[in-house]
């Protein structure tokens, strides 16, 4: 069994490396798929494992975009002047400035998002259930609206970043591997995390927070740490997205509450909440569905997506992994004693 698992992981890793060269036409699509996987896994950290359904994780994505862009620009030029000219071509970046700015910007985006997760968490973690979801949704919407009125960061126009200095195809592969690296490390990180005492503690919070509190778990601290970790990875992904998209604006691409902000939740529900592989499987299925409807059902794609959300939530809430666990428990290391099973029947 362990051998099979190693082979499976090796195959997935090999596919990760080969896919951008095997399917060069889909370079950007594959990068977006990794983005979906990252945001889904991190949403599941709080939503699935800790029982706090946030609708505002998109806040970290948008904030990551802005922080990364502002750091990269601010290191070389005055931000106010730059956004005023709307990247009008006068501003040149050398290779060192571009890659150095990107590295520091993306890292800074992750750290800033962690910090803001702690601050927002202190304010909102007293809310439970739907109030937490509405409260965090409110934070994300408010942030988008405020940023779009903030002229120093470009207002509703957004920010235009410099273009990748090499040729277009290498750029696509480059961004693919950036996303893939963050995605793989996110997956390995949560895989390790869920096996530790910390993972057990956040699961306890999900199952019964009052009891967890009574057992001596400092629940608020655990909740803040978990959200800060999730926000770190989303912030990284947002920062990379900013450079990949080149131009972004606050309401449609950065704080896109009703697009990516809700997609990540649907991905997790589709794949299976509170499982390790669920978010990954869900993100892949959802992305496939989205791209197919976008190509063949033009005009009706949003209706199809809305219908997918409703159907998933209402009829298929256990997700693919939950369904598999029910059908094939032995794959998940759950042993059902023959005798007990017979007695049950």
């Amino acid at each position: 069994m362990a051998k099979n698992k190693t082979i499976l992981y090796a195959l997935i890793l090999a596919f990760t490396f080969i896919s951008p060269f095997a399917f060069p036409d889909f370079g950007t699509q594959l990068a977006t798929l990794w983005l979906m996987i990252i945001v889904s896994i991190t949403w599941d950290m709080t939503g699935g494992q800790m029982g706090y359904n946030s609708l505002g994780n998109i806040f970290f994505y948008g904030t990551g975009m802005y922080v990364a862009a502002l750091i990269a620009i601010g290191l070389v030029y005055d931000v106010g002047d730059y956004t005023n000219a709307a990247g009008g071509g006068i501003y040149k970046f050398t290779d060192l400035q571009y890659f150095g700015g990107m590295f520091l910007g993306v890292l800074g985006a992750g750290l800033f998002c962690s910090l803001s997760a702690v601050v927002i968490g202190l304010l909102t973690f007293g809310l439970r259930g739907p109030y937490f979801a509405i409260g965090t949704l409110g934070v994300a919407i408010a942030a988008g609206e405020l940023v779009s009125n903030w002229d120093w960061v470009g207002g509703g126009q957004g920010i235009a970043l410099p273009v990748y200095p090499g040729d277009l195809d290498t750029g696509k592969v480059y961004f693919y591997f950036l996303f893939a690296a963050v995605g793989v490390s996110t997956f390995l990180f949560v895989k390790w995390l869920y096996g530790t005492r910390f993972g057990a503690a956040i699961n306890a919070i999900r199952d019964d927070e009052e009891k967890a509190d009574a057992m001596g778990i400092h629940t608020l601290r655990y909740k803040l740490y978990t959200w800060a970790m999730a926000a770190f990875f989303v912030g990284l992904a947002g920062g990379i997205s900013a450079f990949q998209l080149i131009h972004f604006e606050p309401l449609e691409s950065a704080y896109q509450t009703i697009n990516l902000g809700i997609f990540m939740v649907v991905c997790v529900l589709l794949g299976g909440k509170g499982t390790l592989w669920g978010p990954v499987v869900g993100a892949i299925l959802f992305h496939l569905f989205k791209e197919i409807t976008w190509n063949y059902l033009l005009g009706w794609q949003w209706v199809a997506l809305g219908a997918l959300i409703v159907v998933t939530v209402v009829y298929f809430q256990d997700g693919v992994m939950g369904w598999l666990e029910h059908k094939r428990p032995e794959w998940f290391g759950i042993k059902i004693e023959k005798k007990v099973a017979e007695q049950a029947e």
Partner: protein
Amino acid sequence: MDQILGNIGLLFEFPVVNLKIILDGIMVGALFALAAYGLALVWGVMNVKNLAQGDFVISGGYVSWWLVQHGFPALLGVPIAFVVMWGVGWIIYKLVISRVIERDLFTSLLATFGLAIMMAQILNLMFGSDTQSVDLDYDVLYFFDGFIDVPIAKLIGVLMAAALAAGVIIFMKSSRMGQAIRATAQDARAARVMGIDTEKVYAFTFSLNSAICGAAGAIIVMVWVIQPFYGISYSIRAFVIVTAAGLGNLPGVIAAGLGIGALEQYGAHIFGIGYQQAIAVLLLLLVLLYRLIQQRRNRQVLK
């Protein structure tokens, strides 16, 4: 910053401006209060948080707009929108909502979010993404040397909203169905034991909510403009009002609706119209934080 201070100064220099803002706010708020009352009804009776509330409003507006395009008088749009949206609400209840009542609260939130996306898009495909409105050929009343203008159309809108609210209140207080709804909200299991068909009550409540929203939308299309994607802003305001006022507290809902309408107009006056949506959302966060601080005194959380 100077501009903001200037705008505040204007309020003290010309006190009449305050009156105009408050009047505008009350007119806006009356319609918010209608949508919020529907939300509070559904939330209280069947514990479903309907994020598609605003899209019901917009759909009602389009029903009325479509009628006017086909030669019907505008005022007739309100009752017809009420009836049409009643049917739409009943279909949505049977297809989706009836299956999420017993589930956890996040389920209803997400399912109705999916519904909201679908409805907005279907409206967009049917009627296009332009803003639409219905022009009523009524005069505008002027007070205080033309400082305050009150279009009669808006006045009619507010009166119709008030009449609708009064009708719903009387219905809930005195009719047999209204009693059954209130009993189910108090204790669904006990209501079942006493012989109330709760399934029927749920279907009725959701349809009623949808119909109230539809009528509110038909009024809105006469007074302001509608657009397929405006729904979310009405949903947010409905949530602000219900969170502030609490469930099953109709006077509270009306007061909160009018108050939020006025506060929003003040905010838009002071900070600029671009901040109007942000102010509505920030009010929601403030209300949540305030309630949280209240609960913390008793070491409780907001559930």
